[in-house]
Protein backbone atom coordinates (compact mmCIF):
# COMPACT_ATOMS: atom_id res chain seq x y z
CA UNK A 1 0.00 0.00 0.00
CA UNK A 2 2.95 2.33 0.65
CA UNK A 3 3.96 2.65 -2.99
CA UNK A 4 0.54 3.76 -4.40
CA UNK A 5 0.18 6.28 -1.54
CA UNK A 6 3.62 7.65 -2.31
CA UNK A 7 2.99 7.93 -6.05
CA UNK A 8 -0.37 9.61 -5.32
CA UNK A 9 1.40 12.19 -3.15
CA UNK A 10 4.00 12.70 -5.88
CA UNK A 11 1.36 13.31 -8.52
CA UNK A 12 -0.63 15.58 -6.19
CA UNK A 13 2.45 17.74 -5.67
CA UNK A 14 2.95 18.09 -9.42
CA UNK A 15 -0.72 18.89 -10.05
CA UNK A 16 -0.73 21.54 -7.30
CA UNK A 17 2.44 23.18 -8.63
CA UNK A 18 1.20 23.14 -12.22
CA UNK A 19 -2.17 24.61 -11.20
CA UNK A 20 -0.39 27.27 -9.13
CA UNK A 21 1.85 28.17 -12.09
CA UNK A 22 -1.10 28.30 -14.49
CA UNK A 23 -3.05 30.50 -12.06
CA UNK A 24 -0.12 32.91 -11.74
CA UNK A 25 0.31 33.01 -15.53
CA UNK A 26 -3.43 33.62 -16.03
CA UNK A 27 -3.51 36.42 -13.46
CA UNK A 28 -0.46 38.00 -15.11
CA UNK A 29 -1.81 37.69 -18.65
CA UNK A 30 -5.23 39.09 -17.76
CA UNK A 31 -3.67 41.90 -15.71
CA UNK A 32 -5.85 41.11 -12.69
CA UNK A 33 -2.92 41.07 -10.28
CA UNK A 34 -0.75 43.54 -12.18
CA UNK A 35 -0.12 45.82 -9.20
CA UNK A 36 0.80 42.85 -6.98
CA UNK A 37 3.17 41.29 -9.54
CA UNK A 38 4.82 44.57 -10.56
CA UNK A 39 5.25 45.37 -6.86
CA UNK A 40 6.87 41.96 -6.26
CA UNK A 41 9.13 42.43 -9.29
CA UNK A 42 10.18 45.88 -8.10
CA UNK A 43 11.01 44.53 -4.63
CA UNK A 44 12.99 41.64 -6.14
CA UNK A 45 14.86 44.04 -8.43
CA UNK A 46 15.57 46.39 -5.53
CA UNK A 47 17.13 43.50 -3.58
CA UNK A 48 18.98 42.02 -6.52
CA UNK A 49 20.31 45.12 -8.30
CA UNK A 50 22.85 46.10 -5.61
CA UNK A 51 23.99 42.47 -5.33
CA UNK A 52 24.42 42.24 -9.09
CA UNK A 53 26.30 45.55 -9.20
CA UNK A 54 28.52 44.36 -6.34
CA UNK A 55 29.33 41.07 -8.07
CA UNK A 56 30.06 42.86 -11.35
CA UNK A 57 32.25 45.34 -9.47
CA UNK A 58 34.25 42.46 -7.95
CA UNK A 59 34.50 40.41 -11.17
CA UNK A 60 35.76 43.19 -13.44
CA UNK A 61 39.08 43.75 -11.57
CA UNK A 62 39.53 39.96 -11.25
CA UNK A 63 39.18 39.63 -15.00
CA UNK A 64 41.77 42.34 -15.50
CA UNK A 65 44.08 40.73 -12.91
CA UNK A 66 43.99 37.37 -14.68
CA UNK A 67 44.61 39.04 -18.02
CA UNK A 68 47.72 40.63 -16.51
CA UNK A 69 48.84 37.41 -14.78
CA UNK A 70 48.74 35.48 -18.03
CA UNK A 71 51.25 37.86 -19.57
CA UNK A 72 53.53 38.14 -16.50
CA UNK A 73 56.92 36.46 -16.69
CA UNK A 74 56.50 35.24 -20.22
CA UNK A 75 58.10 38.19 -21.93
CA UNK A 76 61.65 39.44 -22.24
CA UNK A 77 62.32 42.91 -20.91
CA UNK A 78 62.64 44.55 -24.29
CA UNK A 79 59.56 42.85 -25.66
CA UNK A 80 57.66 43.93 -22.55
CA UNK A 81 58.65 47.51 -23.18
CA UNK A 82 57.63 47.37 -26.83
CA UNK A 83 54.37 45.65 -26.08
CA UNK A 84 53.58 48.11 -23.34
CA UNK A 85 54.12 50.93 -25.81
CA UNK A 86 51.94 49.25 -28.40
CA UNK A 87 49.27 48.60 -25.80
CA UNK A 88 49.33 52.22 -24.69
CA UNK A 89 48.91 53.36 -28.27
CA UNK A 90 46.16 50.84 -28.88
CA UNK A 91 44.36 51.88 -25.72
CA UNK A 92 44.63 55.50 -26.74
CA UNK A 93 43.22 54.65 -30.14
CA UNK A 94 40.45 52.54 -28.65
CA UNK A 95 39.67 55.18 -26.08
CA UNK A 96 39.46 57.83 -28.80
CA UNK A 97 37.18 55.63 -30.92
CA UNK A 98 35.00 54.79 -27.90
CA UNK A 99 34.88 58.46 -26.88
CA UNK A 100 33.90 59.46 -30.43
CA UNK A 101 31.15 56.83 -30.46
CA UNK A 102 29.84 58.02 -27.09
CA UNK A 103 29.96 61.64 -28.21
CA UNK A 104 28.07 60.78 -31.41
CA UNK A 105 25.44 58.86 -29.46
CA UNK A 106 24.97 61.70 -26.99
CA UNK A 107 24.76 64.29 -29.81
CA UNK A 108 22.08 62.24 -31.57
CA UNK A 109 20.25 61.89 -28.25
CA UNK A 110 20.25 65.67 -27.85
CA UNK A 111 18.83 66.07 -31.38
CA UNK A 112 15.92 63.74 -30.58
CA UNK A 113 15.22 65.61 -27.40
CA UNK A 114 14.87 68.83 -29.42
CA UNK A 115 11.81 67.47 -31.23
CA UNK A 116 8.94 69.98 -30.84
CA UNK A 117 6.68 67.33 -29.29
CA UNK A 118 9.23 66.61 -26.56
CA UNK A 119 10.42 70.16 -25.83
CA UNK A 120 8.13 70.54 -22.82
CA UNK A 121 9.01 67.19 -21.25
CA UNK A 122 11.65 66.58 -18.61
CA UNK A 123 14.07 63.75 -19.22
CA UNK A 124 16.79 61.79 -17.43
CA UNK A 125 20.02 60.69 -19.14
CA UNK A 126 20.93 57.12 -18.15
CA UNK A 127 23.63 54.62 -19.03
CA UNK A 128 22.84 51.09 -20.18
CA UNK A 129 24.46 48.60 -17.80
CA UNK A 130 23.06 45.22 -18.95
CA UNK A 131 21.74 43.96 -22.29
CA UNK A 132 19.13 41.18 -22.58
CA UNK A 133 18.73 39.32 -19.28
CA UNK A 134 17.10 36.37 -21.05
CA UNK A 135 17.35 34.63 -24.42
CA UNK A 136 13.60 35.11 -24.87
CA UNK A 137 13.27 38.81 -24.06
CA UNK A 138 14.77 42.01 -25.44
CA UNK A 139 15.51 44.32 -22.51
CA UNK A 140 18.21 46.59 -21.16
CA UNK A 141 18.95 47.67 -17.60
CA UNK A 142 19.73 51.33 -16.82
CA UNK A 143 21.93 52.77 -14.07
CA UNK A 144 19.20 55.11 -12.84
CA UNK A 145 15.81 54.50 -11.27
CA UNK A 146 13.03 55.98 -9.19
CA UNK A 147 15.46 58.14 -7.17
CA UNK A 148 15.86 60.25 -10.34
CA UNK A 149 12.06 60.27 -10.91
CA UNK A 150 12.11 57.45 -13.49
CA UNK A 151 8.80 55.57 -13.34
CA UNK A 152 7.25 52.45 -14.85
CA UNK A 153 5.72 53.35 -18.21
CA UNK A 154 8.18 56.14 -19.07
CA UNK A 155 9.16 56.19 -22.77
CA UNK A 156 12.87 55.71 -23.47
CA UNK A 157 14.72 57.37 -26.34
CA UNK A 158 17.99 56.38 -27.97
CA UNK A 159 20.14 58.14 -30.55
CA UNK A 160 17.63 59.02 -33.28
CA UNK A 161 14.33 57.74 -31.93
CA UNK A 162 12.29 55.51 -29.64
CA UNK A 163 13.97 52.58 -27.89
CA UNK A 164 11.25 51.23 -25.61
CA UNK A 165 9.50 51.68 -22.30
CA UNK A 166 10.39 51.28 -18.62
CA UNK A 167 8.74 48.11 -17.25
CA UNK A 168 10.27 47.87 -13.77
CA UNK A 169 12.09 50.43 -11.68
CA UNK A 170 13.97 50.38 -8.39
CA UNK A 171 15.57 53.39 -6.67
CA UNK A 172 18.84 52.83 -8.55
CA UNK A 173 17.96 50.86 -11.70
CA UNK A 174 15.29 50.55 -14.36
CA UNK A 175 14.50 47.77 -16.84
CA UNK A 176 13.48 48.85 -20.32
CA UNK A 177 11.47 46.64 -22.66
CA UNK A 178 12.92 47.29 -26.11
CA UNK A 179 10.87 47.81 -29.27
CA UNK A 180 12.09 44.45 -30.55
CA UNK A 181 10.73 42.50 -27.55
CA UNK A 182 7.80 40.29 -28.42
CA UNK A 183 5.56 42.03 -25.87
CA UNK A 184 6.26 45.53 -27.19
CA UNK A 185 3.40 47.34 -28.97
CA UNK A 186 3.69 50.94 -30.18
CA UNK A 187 0.93 52.96 -31.85
CA UNK A 188 2.43 54.68 -34.92
CA UNK A 189 1.36 57.05 -37.69
CA UNK A 190 2.48 57.00 -41.33
CA UNK A 191 1.67 58.78 -44.60
CA UNK A 192 2.62 62.39 -45.32
CA UNK A 193 -0.69 63.56 -46.87
CA UNK A 194 -3.41 61.44 -45.34
CA UNK A 195 -2.04 60.23 -42.00
CA UNK A 196 -2.94 56.65 -41.05
CA UNK A 197 -2.48 54.72 -37.83
CA UNK A 198 -0.91 51.31 -37.30
CA UNK A 199 0.75 49.29 -34.54
CA UNK A 200 4.39 48.26 -34.48
CA UNK A 201 4.92 44.91 -32.75
CA UNK A 202 8.26 43.44 -31.66
CA UNK A 203 9.26 40.01 -32.98
CA UNK A 204 12.20 39.24 -30.69
CA UNK A 205 15.78 40.51 -30.40
CA UNK A 206 17.61 40.98 -33.68
CA UNK A 207 14.52 40.70 -35.86
CA UNK A 208 12.49 43.22 -37.85
CA UNK A 209 9.34 44.74 -36.38
CA UNK A 210 5.90 43.76 -37.64
CA UNK A 211 3.62 46.64 -38.66
CA UNK A 212 0.03 45.61 -37.97
CA UNK A 213 -3.30 47.00 -39.17
CA UNK A 214 -2.05 48.51 -42.44
CA UNK A 215 -5.13 48.32 -44.69
CA UNK A 216 -4.52 47.01 -48.22
CA UNK A 217 -6.12 50.17 -49.61
CA UNK A 218 -3.67 52.59 -47.95
CA UNK A 219 -0.43 53.80 -49.49
CA UNK A 220 2.77 52.83 -47.67
CA UNK A 221 6.18 52.38 -49.22
CA UNK A 222 9.62 51.06 -48.36
CA UNK A 223 11.76 53.65 -46.60
CA UNK A 224 8.80 55.49 -45.07
CA UNK A 225 9.27 56.63 -41.48
CA UNK A 226 6.87 55.59 -38.73
CA UNK A 227 6.42 57.94 -35.78
CA UNK A 228 4.47 57.54 -32.55
CA UNK A 229 0.82 58.46 -33.10
CA UNK A 230 0.08 59.80 -29.60
CA UNK A 231 -3.59 58.88 -29.88
CA UNK A 232 -5.98 59.13 -26.93
CA UNK A 233 -4.69 56.80 -24.23
CA UNK A 234 -1.39 56.21 -26.03
CA UNK A 235 1.60 55.12 -24.00
CA UNK A 236 4.03 57.38 -25.92
CA UNK A 237 3.96 61.09 -26.82
CA UNK A 238 3.27 61.87 -30.49
CA UNK A 239 5.96 62.47 -33.08
CA UNK A 240 8.86 60.29 -31.90
CA UNK A 241 10.60 58.45 -34.77
CA UNK A 242 10.17 54.69 -34.28
CA UNK A 243 11.07 52.68 -37.38
CA UNK A 244 11.60 52.70 -41.13
CA UNK A 245 9.51 50.49 -43.43
CA UNK A 246 11.75 47.70 -44.72
CA UNK A 247 9.31 45.72 -46.85
CA UNK A 248 5.67 45.82 -47.98
CA UNK A 249 3.77 42.82 -49.34
CA UNK A 250 0.20 42.72 -50.50
CA UNK A 251 -1.44 39.32 -50.31
CA UNK A 252 -4.33 38.80 -52.73
CA UNK A 253 -7.66 38.81 -50.88
CA UNK A 254 -6.18 39.93 -47.54
CA UNK A 255 -7.57 43.03 -45.83
CA UNK A 256 -4.20 44.07 -44.39
CA UNK A 257 -0.76 44.38 -45.93
CA UNK A 258 2.26 42.51 -44.59
CA UNK A 259 4.66 45.24 -43.55
CA UNK A 260 8.05 44.86 -41.84
CA UNK A 261 10.10 47.70 -40.39
CA UNK A 262 13.52 48.18 -38.84
CA UNK A 263 13.95 50.27 -35.68
CA UNK A 264 15.55 53.67 -36.30
CA UNK A 265 17.79 53.12 -33.28
CA UNK A 266 20.17 50.14 -33.25
CA UNK A 267 18.89 48.71 -29.96
CA UNK A 268 21.61 46.05 -29.82
CA UNK A 269 24.38 48.57 -29.18
CA UNK A 270 22.90 51.09 -26.78
CA UNK A 271 25.20 53.00 -24.43
CA UNK A 272 23.18 56.01 -23.30
CA UNK A 273 19.44 56.61 -23.38
CA UNK A 274 17.08 59.40 -22.42
CA UNK A 275 14.11 58.52 -20.19
CA UNK A 276 11.16 60.86 -20.75
CA UNK A 277 9.09 61.73 -17.72
CA UNK A 278 5.72 61.34 -19.36
CA UNK A 279 2.66 60.05 -17.59
CA UNK A 280 0.67 59.28 -20.75
CA UNK A 281 -2.25 60.99 -22.48
CA UNK A 282 -5.74 60.62 -21.11
Amino acid at each position, binding site marked *: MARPRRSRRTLTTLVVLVLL*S*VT*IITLDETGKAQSLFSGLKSVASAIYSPLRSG*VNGVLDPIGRFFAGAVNYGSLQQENQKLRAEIQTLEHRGAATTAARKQLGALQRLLLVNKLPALAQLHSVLAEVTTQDIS*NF*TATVTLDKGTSTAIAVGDPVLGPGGLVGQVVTATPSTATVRLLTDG*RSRVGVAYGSKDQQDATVAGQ*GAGRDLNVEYVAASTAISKGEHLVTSGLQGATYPAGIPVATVASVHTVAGATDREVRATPIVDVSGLTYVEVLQWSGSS
Partner: protein
Amino acid sequence: MSGRALIRTAVLIGVTLLFQTTVVLEIRIGGMAPDVMLLLPIAAGLVAGPVEGAVVGFVAGIAADLLLPAPFGLSALVGSLIGFGVGAATASLPRDIPGLSVLVALAASGIAVMLYAVLGALLGESQFIHAGLAVMIPVVAVTNAVLAVPAVRLTRWALMASGDRAPTGSQR
Protein backbone atom coordinates in the same frame (compact mmCIF):
# COMPACT_ATOMS: atom_id res chain seq x y z
CA MET B 1 12.96 18.41 3.87
CA SER B 2 14.57 19.76 7.07
CA GLY B 3 14.80 23.44 7.99
CA ARG B 4 18.51 23.43 7.24
CA ALA B 5 17.86 21.90 3.83
CA LEU B 6 15.27 24.61 3.11
CA ILE B 7 17.73 27.37 3.98
CA ARG B 8 20.52 25.76 1.95
CA THR B 9 18.21 25.30 -1.03
CA ALA B 10 17.07 28.93 -0.84
CA VAL B 11 20.71 30.07 -0.71
CA LEU B 12 21.59 27.82 -3.65
CA ILE B 13 18.74 29.25 -5.73
CA GLY B 14 19.72 32.82 -4.84
CA VAL B 15 23.40 32.31 -5.60
CA THR B 16 22.63 30.51 -8.88
CA LEU B 17 20.36 33.36 -9.93
CA LEU B 18 23.11 35.85 -9.14
CA PHE B 19 25.62 33.71 -11.07
CA GLN B 20 23.20 33.55 -14.02
CA THR B 21 22.53 37.31 -14.13
CA THR B 22 26.17 38.36 -13.75
CA VAL B 23 28.75 35.87 -15.00
CA VAL B 24 26.65 33.63 -17.26
CA LEU B 25 24.90 36.47 -19.09
CA GLU B 26 28.30 37.75 -20.22
CA ILE B 27 28.95 34.46 -22.03
CA ARG B 28 27.35 34.69 -25.46
CA ILE B 29 27.67 31.86 -27.96
CA GLY B 30 26.04 32.68 -31.28
CA GLY B 31 24.26 35.52 -29.47
CA MET B 32 22.71 33.15 -26.89
CA ALA B 33 23.52 32.87 -23.19
CA PRO B 34 23.55 29.62 -21.19
CA ASP B 35 20.75 29.12 -18.63
CA VAL B 36 22.10 27.54 -15.44
CA MET B 37 18.82 28.09 -13.57
CA LEU B 38 17.47 25.07 -15.44
CA LEU B 39 20.14 22.93 -13.80
CA LEU B 40 18.54 23.30 -10.37
CA PRO B 41 15.33 21.30 -10.98
CA ILE B 42 17.27 18.81 -13.11
CA ALA B 43 19.82 18.21 -10.34
CA ALA B 44 17.12 18.14 -7.65
CA GLY B 45 15.13 15.56 -9.64
CA LEU B 46 18.26 13.44 -10.05
CA VAL B 47 19.37 13.72 -6.44
CA ALA B 48 16.10 13.56 -4.52
CA GLY B 49 13.31 12.47 -6.85
CA PRO B 50 10.29 13.95 -8.63
CA VAL B 51 8.67 15.82 -5.71
CA GLU B 52 11.83 17.70 -4.74
CA GLY B 53 12.63 18.26 -8.43
CA ALA B 54 9.21 19.83 -9.04
CA VAL B 55 9.32 21.99 -5.89
CA VAL B 56 12.86 23.26 -6.56
CA GLY B 57 11.88 23.91 -10.20
CA PHE B 58 8.83 25.91 -9.13
CA VAL B 59 10.69 28.06 -6.58
CA ALA B 60 13.71 28.64 -8.86
CA GLY B 61 11.34 29.50 -11.71
CA ILE B 62 9.41 32.04 -9.64
CA ALA B 63 12.72 33.61 -8.55
CA ALA B 64 13.83 33.90 -12.18
CA ASP B 65 10.41 35.19 -13.30
CA LEU B 66 10.63 38.02 -10.75
CA LEU B 67 13.57 39.43 -12.72
CA LEU B 68 12.21 38.81 -16.22
CA PRO B 69 9.77 40.94 -18.22
CA ALA B 70 8.25 37.72 -19.61
CA PRO B 71 5.02 35.87 -18.72
CA PHE B 72 5.14 35.61 -14.91
CA GLY B 73 4.98 31.97 -13.83
CA LEU B 74 6.16 30.44 -17.10
CA SER B 75 9.64 29.58 -15.80
CA ALA B 76 8.00 28.12 -12.67
CA LEU B 77 5.74 25.91 -14.79
CA VAL B 78 8.64 24.69 -16.95
CA GLY B 79 10.84 24.16 -13.88
CA SER B 80 8.16 22.10 -12.11
CA LEU B 81 7.57 19.89 -15.14
CA ILE B 82 11.28 19.37 -15.85
CA GLY B 83 12.19 18.66 -12.23
CA PHE B 84 9.34 16.20 -11.91
CA GLY B 85 10.10 14.61 -15.29
CA VAL B 86 13.78 14.08 -14.48
CA GLY B 87 12.97 12.65 -11.05
CA ALA B 88 10.33 10.27 -12.42
CA ALA B 89 12.36 9.19 -15.45
CA THR B 90 15.51 8.39 -13.48
CA ALA B 91 13.88 6.91 -10.35
CA SER B 92 14.18 3.34 -11.54
CA LEU B 93 17.61 3.65 -13.15
CA PRO B 94 20.67 2.08 -11.49
CA ARG B 95 22.66 4.64 -9.52
CA ASP B 96 26.08 3.74 -10.89
CA ILE B 97 25.62 4.57 -14.57
CA PRO B 98 28.70 6.64 -15.49
CA GLY B 99 27.94 10.13 -16.78
CA LEU B 100 24.22 9.82 -16.04
CA SER B 101 23.94 13.37 -14.65
CA VAL B 102 25.74 14.77 -17.73
CA LEU B 103 23.46 12.96 -20.16
CA VAL B 104 20.32 13.85 -18.21
CA ALA B 105 21.34 17.53 -17.99
CA LEU B 106 22.04 17.59 -21.74
CA ALA B 107 18.67 16.11 -22.70
CA ALA B 108 16.52 17.77 -20.03
CA SER B 109 17.97 21.25 -20.69
CA GLY B 110 17.21 20.98 -24.40
CA ILE B 111 13.67 19.78 -23.64
CA ALA B 112 13.19 22.59 -21.09
CA VAL B 113 14.15 25.31 -23.60
CA MET B 114 11.78 23.84 -26.19
CA LEU B 115 9.02 23.54 -23.58
CA TYR B 116 9.48 27.19 -22.55
CA ALA B 117 9.28 28.30 -26.19
CA VAL B 118 6.20 26.17 -26.98
CA LEU B 119 4.32 27.12 -23.80
CA GLY B 120 5.24 30.78 -24.36
CA ALA B 121 3.89 30.55 -27.92
CA LEU B 122 0.66 28.99 -26.62
CA LEU B 123 0.34 31.97 -24.27
CA GLY B 124 0.55 34.36 -27.20
CA GLU B 125 4.33 34.88 -27.30
CA SER B 126 4.63 33.49 -30.81
CA GLN B 127 8.05 35.13 -31.22
CA PHE B 128 9.46 32.61 -28.70
CA ILE B 129 9.58 30.06 -31.51
CA HIS B 130 12.16 31.34 -33.95
CA ALA B 131 15.30 30.32 -35.81
CA GLY B 132 17.48 31.31 -32.84
CA LEU B 133 16.25 28.21 -30.98
CA ALA B 134 18.55 26.14 -33.20
CA VAL B 135 21.48 27.88 -31.48
CA MET B 136 19.88 28.40 -28.06
CA ILE B 137 19.03 24.73 -27.43
CA PRO B 138 22.56 23.33 -27.99
CA VAL B 139 24.16 26.27 -26.12
CA VAL B 140 21.99 25.74 -23.02
CA ALA B 141 22.13 21.92 -23.22
CA VAL B 142 25.91 21.64 -23.65
CA THR B 143 26.83 24.23 -20.99
CA ASN B 144 24.45 22.59 -18.53
CA ALA B 145 25.93 19.17 -19.33
CA VAL B 146 29.40 20.56 -18.59
CA LEU B 147 28.20 22.00 -15.27
CA ALA B 148 26.04 19.00 -14.33
CA VAL B 149 28.49 17.28 -11.95
CA PRO B 150 29.15 20.32 -9.70
CA ALA B 151 25.44 21.21 -9.87
CA VAL B 152 24.44 17.75 -8.64
CA ARG B 153 26.99 17.95 -5.81
CA LEU B 154 25.77 21.38 -4.72
CA THR B 155 22.13 20.30 -4.90
CA ARG B 156 22.90 17.17 -2.86
CA TRP B 157 24.65 19.38 -0.27
CA ALA B 158 21.55 21.57 -0.11
CA LEU B 159 18.78 18.96 -0.16
CA MET B 160 20.47 16.29 1.94
CA ALA B 161 21.28 18.52 4.92
CA SER B 162 20.76 17.14 8.45
CA GLY B 163 21.00 13.53 7.41
CA ASP B 164 18.11 13.60 4.93
CA ARG B 165 18.42 10.70 2.55
CA ALA B 166 17.53 10.55 -1.08
CA PRO B 167 14.84 8.10 -2.05
CA THR B 168 16.49 7.55 -5.42
CA GLY B 169 19.65 8.32 -7.32
CA SER B 170 21.58 9.83 -4.45
CA GLN B 171 24.93 8.54 -5.69
CA ARG B 172 24.72 10.12 -9.11
